[in-house]
C-alpha cells in the first residue's frame, strides 16, 4: 500500500512538473515573441520619430519661416527681432493705477537702472 502510494506520488509529481515546465516553456516562447514584436514596433516608431524630427527641422528652416511671416503679416504682425524691441525699464508704460507698478527687481544689466540707489 505504502509502496503504491509512494509510486503514485512520484509519478504524479513528475507529471505535474513536466506540465509546469511545458507551461513555462510555452509562456517564455510567447513572451519572446512579444519582445520581438515590441522591438519591431519601437524600431518603426523610432524611425517615424526620426523622419518627423527631420521634417520638423525642415519646416522650421529660417528662410521658410521668414517667408511665412511676410505672407501672413497682416494677420500675425510678426517682424524680425530688432534692437528697438528692447526698451528701458523706465519707458515701460504701466497705466494710470499705481497698483500695477511692478514690485520685482529686474536685473540691472537688463535695464541699465540701478534699483539700489
Amino acid at each position, binding site marked *: 500500500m505504502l509502496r503504491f502510494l509512494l509510486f503514485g506520488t512520484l509519478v504524479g509529481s513528475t507529471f505535474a512538473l513536466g506540465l509546469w515546465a511545458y507551461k513555462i516553456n510555452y509562456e517564455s516562447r510567447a513572451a519572446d515573441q512579444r519582445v520581438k514584436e515590441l522591438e519591431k514596433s519601437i524600431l518603426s516608431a*523610432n524611425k517615424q520619430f526620426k523622419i518627423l524630427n527631420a521634417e520638423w*527641422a525642415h519646416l522650421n528652416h529660417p528662410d521658410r519661416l521668414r517667408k511665412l511671416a511676410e505672407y501672413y503679416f497682416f494677420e500675425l504682425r510678426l517682424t524680425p527681432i530688432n534692437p528697438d524691441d528692447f526698451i528701458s525699464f523706465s519707458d515701460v508704460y504701466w497705466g494710470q493705477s499705481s497698483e500695477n507698478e511692478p514690485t520685482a527687481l529686474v536685473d540691472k544689466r537688463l535695464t541699465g537702472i540701478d534699483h539700489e540707489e
Partner: protein
Amino acid sequence: MKNSNKVKLFTERSRTRSRLILFSLMVLTGFSLISGKIAFLASKENKKNISYSEKEEIYSRLNISDRNGYILATNLEGASAYIRPDEIQKKSLTTQRLKSIFPDLNEAVLLNKLNDGRKFFWLKSIVSPRQEKALFDLGQPGIYIGKREYRFYPHGTLASHVIGYTKVNELDVNYAEISGISGVERAFENELAIKNSSKVKDYSIHLSLDLPVQAEVENVLKEWQKRMGAKAGGVVIMNIHNGEIFALASSPDFNANKERGELGKNKASSIYFNRVVQGVYEMGSTFKIFSVAQGLEEDLFTLDTQIDTRAFRINSRKIEDKYKFNSESSIYEIIVRSSNVGSARLAQMVGEKGLKEIFSKLGLLEPVGLELREANTTRPILPKNWHDITLATVSYGYGMSVSLLHLAKAYAILGNGGIDIEPTILKKNYDSQSGSRVLKKTTSDEILKLLEAVVTDQRGTARILGSKYYRIGGKTGTAEKISLEKKGYLKDKVVANFVGLFPLQEPRFVIAAFLDEPENNFLQEPCRYASCTVVPMVKKLIERTGPLMNVTPDHQALMF
C-alpha cells in the same frame, strides 16, 4: 527449511532494493532532463535578446544639431534600386518603363548595361518613396529595392561649410556605410559613427552654432556680396571668452543634399572651399593694432606718444599714406585714421623680435586649433626673410597671409583682457575663461579704447558703424590683391575686411568679416575700401544678430 526461507527473504529484499534504485534513477533522469531543458531554454533566450539589440541599429550615425538642439544633419532610411539583368526577359520594354519612372535615365546606356552580360548593377543609389512605389507597381522581376540609410541636411545650404558632407564608403543591397569627408562630419567621424547604439545616451553632437544667428549672417552676407559685386565673402562671430563660434559663413556655399565634390585643383574658387577657415589673405590695416599692442605690452609708448608720420624710404621703397598726415601724429591718430607710415615706424620701435612675439601670443604663426581638419591644415603664409622692409609692410598687413579665423582669434585675445583662447565649434557648458594670460589687462583696455575710437571718432575709418544701439569697436583693413600675371599688386582688386568687438561696455563677441573684390558703386565715386564695403555690412550684421544672441542694447547709446 530455515535456510531456504532465509535465502528467499534475502533475494526478495535485494530485488526490492534494486527496483527502488532503478526507480529513483528513472526519476532522477526525468528531473535532470527537465532541468536541463529549462537551463537550455533560459540560456537560448538570453542569447536571442542580446542579438536583437545588436542587430537592430537605428542610429548608425549621430545627428548634428546646433546649440539650441535644432537638427542640422540626420540619417534617414531610404531605398536604392538594383537590377539583375538575367531575370529580365523584355529588356527594351523594361527600359522604356524605367524611363517613365526616372526621366533622367539614359536609355541607351541602361539597355547596354542590361545586355552586356553583367550579373548585377545599381539602377539608382537613392530613390524617392514615390519612385519606390512605382517600381513595386511595375511588378518586373529582376528589379530589386534595398533599404539603406542616407544623410539628410534639413537646412540645405545653411552652415554647409561647417557641417561638411559625407560619402558612401560601402554600398550593399541592404546597407550603406557613410563616412565624413569635410567639416564636422569629418572632424568628429569617430564620435558620429557609432558601433553600439544602446550605449549612446544623446543622439546628437551639439555644435556651438546658433541656427537663427547663422541664418541671419548668411542672408546679410549674400545680400551684401551681391550688392558690392564681390566674388566671395566670409563672416565669423565668436564668443571671446570661451571661443564658441556662434556663426561661420563662407560664400559661395553648397547644398550637401545635392552636391558633394572634392576641392579639386583650383581649390580657392571651389564652392567647397571654406573661405573663413582655409582661405589665407593679406589682411591690410587690421594688422596695425598688433605692433601697438606689443609696444603697450613693453611700455615703449602710450596712446598719446607722438610718432613721425612723414613719408620715408626703406631700401629705396617708399612708405607713404593715401591721406595727408601732420609731420607728427599720436598713436591714437595713427590707428583711427589708419596710417601706414605711422605703423611702419611703430614696427621699427617694436622690432622683429617684438612683432614675432605678439604674433606668436595671438596665434598668428600657427594653424588655428579649431576642431575642423580644414583649420588644422591651414598654415599662415609667413615672410621667408624679415628684412627691414618686410617688418614695415607686415605691420600694416602686407607680406603675411592669415585666415579670417586667425584674425578673429587674435582680436578676441586683445579684447577679452588678454587671455589665450582657442576657437571651438562644440557647445561648451561654461562661459568662463580657462586659458592662460598672454597680455596685460591694461594693454587689452587700451586697445579696446583705440578700437572704439575707430568707430566713434569723426575721422575714424569705421565711423559709419556708429550704432545707436550698441557700442562697437573695431579696425578696418583693405589689401590690394597680388597679381597672378605680373609682379606687384592690382590697384582695382582688393580684399576688404573688418574685425570688431561688441558690446563694448562688457565685450562678449568678436565679429570678423571680409569681402573678396568688393566695389561700392552706390556712392558718387566707386569705393573699394573696407570703410564703404564691409563696414556697412557689419553694422547690419550686428544689429540683426545682437538681439538674437541676447545682447541688450546699451541705453547710454540709445540717448543719441
